[in-house]
């Protein structure tokens, strides 16, 4: 799924990361946790012209719930850049963002026992 990148190992990315965000380094996405789950809002018709290719790709990746860290890794973009892009999508109500379960409330005993059994079975 990796898309070709304009990347030169020696020189680093040819396009500076924050060029994708119009130079903005802050957005409403700043507080999205690394494992907040992002889901594209079903039935929301995006104004294609208003979205950049990266944002369209995020919407494609987040057809199913996907963590912020997963998206950054999948897009091969720094977290800070991805957060700005996610903030824009959130402002336009194109994605829903769910904070991780354990922030509040704590994960249930049942979930943790399931994790323990799942790890043992790996």
């Amino acid at each position, binding site marked *: 799924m990796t898309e070709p990148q304009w990347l030169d190992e020696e020189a680093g990315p040819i396009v500076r990361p924050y060029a994708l965000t119009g130079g903005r380094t802050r957005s409403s996405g700043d507080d999205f*946790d*690394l*494992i907040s789950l992002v889901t594209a809002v079903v039935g929301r018709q995006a104004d294609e012209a208003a979205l950049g290719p990266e944002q369209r790709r995020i919407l494609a990746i987040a057809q199913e719930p996907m963590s912020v860290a997963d998206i950054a*890794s999948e897009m091969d973009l*720094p*977290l800070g850049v991805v957060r700005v892009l996610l903030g824009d999508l959130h402002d336009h109500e194109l994605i829903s963002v769910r904070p991780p379960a354990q922030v509040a409330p704590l994960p249930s005993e049942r*979930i943790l026992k399931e994790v323990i059994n799942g790890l043992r079975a790996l």
Partner: protein
Amino acid sequence: MAYAPSEEPVALKILVAGGFGVGKTTLVGAISEIRPLRTEEVLSDRGVGVDDVDGVEGKTTTTVAMDFGRITIREGLVVYLFGTPGQERFWFMWDELSYGALGAVVLADTRRLTDCFPSIDYFEQRGTPFIVAVNCFDGADKHEPDDVRVALDLDPDVPVLLCDVRRRASAKVVLVTLVEHALKTLTAAQRK
């Protein structure tokens, strides 16, 4: 994909901390599909006094690479592993990483035990459940977990175990020990 309200996807976060070169990447790789995760931090006031930017005044961002692994327990239940950046100049990342974390594995190397002091102090202060896993390097003297506990001045309820992070079975035991410890901490807190 539709989830019933009770079956909303759950994501849990586990941190892997410890000094530089102690085996964090190896541990994450032994148990999960490891993937790179970059964060390009803008050097703001958070960097003042941390990053020595003398002579590179034009540099406004710094790239931090983290280890990032994912273990799918079942559909809708995923455990994420994050290796914390080892160098002290990346302390500013830690608050974000540890926010809402289920717990942390502090990897220790008995030849350089002091390297894990900052991690232990950090998780003790934050009240994040943690365990200490002593990575048994070839050529290093084997130490009993109790000796390590004394050397690190750990609370009696903090689990200490020996491990070989190159082995998947050993990495599994480490993570199971941590989640069991987190569960114990959780149920103890609920009883209060």
